[in-house]
């Protein structure tokens, strides 16, 4: 009698553990965020591989936390300008964040291989300023791996990011093309 109770309890515990782990949030440290700025004077690009992202397939919640000092530039001077209090002020605002949700979750099947076009809406916070964004995200499901890919534009003025004067004010585009990728 006692033995069968133990058996039943362990089966129930096992079931809860396995089903809840399926509904659990996925965490990724395999991320890439890069941006590209084009002006007639010069093209500037930079990449960051140190963001942490979470994806909850059951709710469609997507979060990215981006350590701003991890953006690397070809030229040291560009990196200094990027971090400075005149531009991204990364000492005071070391992280940017996206808190989003897939709005057409019914059209994405995380259990079936394929490429899905998702719509994500959410709040993007850069340099302490939060704006609502709506962007298209491609979700690729292949076996146990889920990949998110997106390319969108960020208008620097929306986040109060601008060089008031000097060379950086003319050499940096007002709109920055941003590419995001994460593998879960």
């Amino acid at each position: 009698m006692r033995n069968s109770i133990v058996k039943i309890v362990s089966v129930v515990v096992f079931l809860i553990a396995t089903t809840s782990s399926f509904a659990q949030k996925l965490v990724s440290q395999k991320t890439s965020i890069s941006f590209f700025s084009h002006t007639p004077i010069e093209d500037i690009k930079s990449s960051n591989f140190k963001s942490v992202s979470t994806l909850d397939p059951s709710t469609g919640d997507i979060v990215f936390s981006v350590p701003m000092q991890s953006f690397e530039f070809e030229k040291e001077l560009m990196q200094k300008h990027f971090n400075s209090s005149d531009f991204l002020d990364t000492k005071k605002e070391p992280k940017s964040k996206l808190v989003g949700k897939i709005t057409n979750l019914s059209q994405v099947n995380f259990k079936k291989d394929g490429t899905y076009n998702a719509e994500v809406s959410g709040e993007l916070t850069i340099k302490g300023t939060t704006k609502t964004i709506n962007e298209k995200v491609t979700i690729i499901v292949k076996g146990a791996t889920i990949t998110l890919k997106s390319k969108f534009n960020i208008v620097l003025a929306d986040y109060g990011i601008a060089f008031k004067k000097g060379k950086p004010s003319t050499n940096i585009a007002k709109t920055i093309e941003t590419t995001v990728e994460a593998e879960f």
Partner: protein
Amino acid sequence: MKRKKIIQILLTILVLALIIAGSNVYYQFNQPHRNVQASKADYSYNSSQIVNEYLANPTAANEKYLDEEGNSKILEISGIVAEIFEDFNKQKVILLKSALDKAGVSCTFTPETDATVNQIKTGETITVKGVIRSGASYDKDLGVYENVIMEKCSVVSK
């Protein structure tokens, strides 16, 4: 004659000034990145110390370790190797974390120092030098603790 000489001297000074100013601008524009590996560490800790300092007071820790132009403090962190993996840039990453801590120190290596990671195994205690990029914190939206992030890392002892 005297006048000609004065003009000559003035012209020489002008040319020299232009060369100095020009090379200064050129240097500013082409200044090299700081060599983290060749630099001396500003602080030495074990992974628990830096993680807990950040969790206790992130604002004070950012003030202490982060640099306004991105050349933040160089740290030497010793700790237990909890994880070894590759990031999206194909760089080796070692997580130094004590089992008792909520977060650890994530150390990303470089193409030059990647090979040294091959000799490291999880469970070992090692010391890594690198530049700090951001601190440890609990993020309520992620629902997880974020690690201290160091880049340009190398193993200094094992």
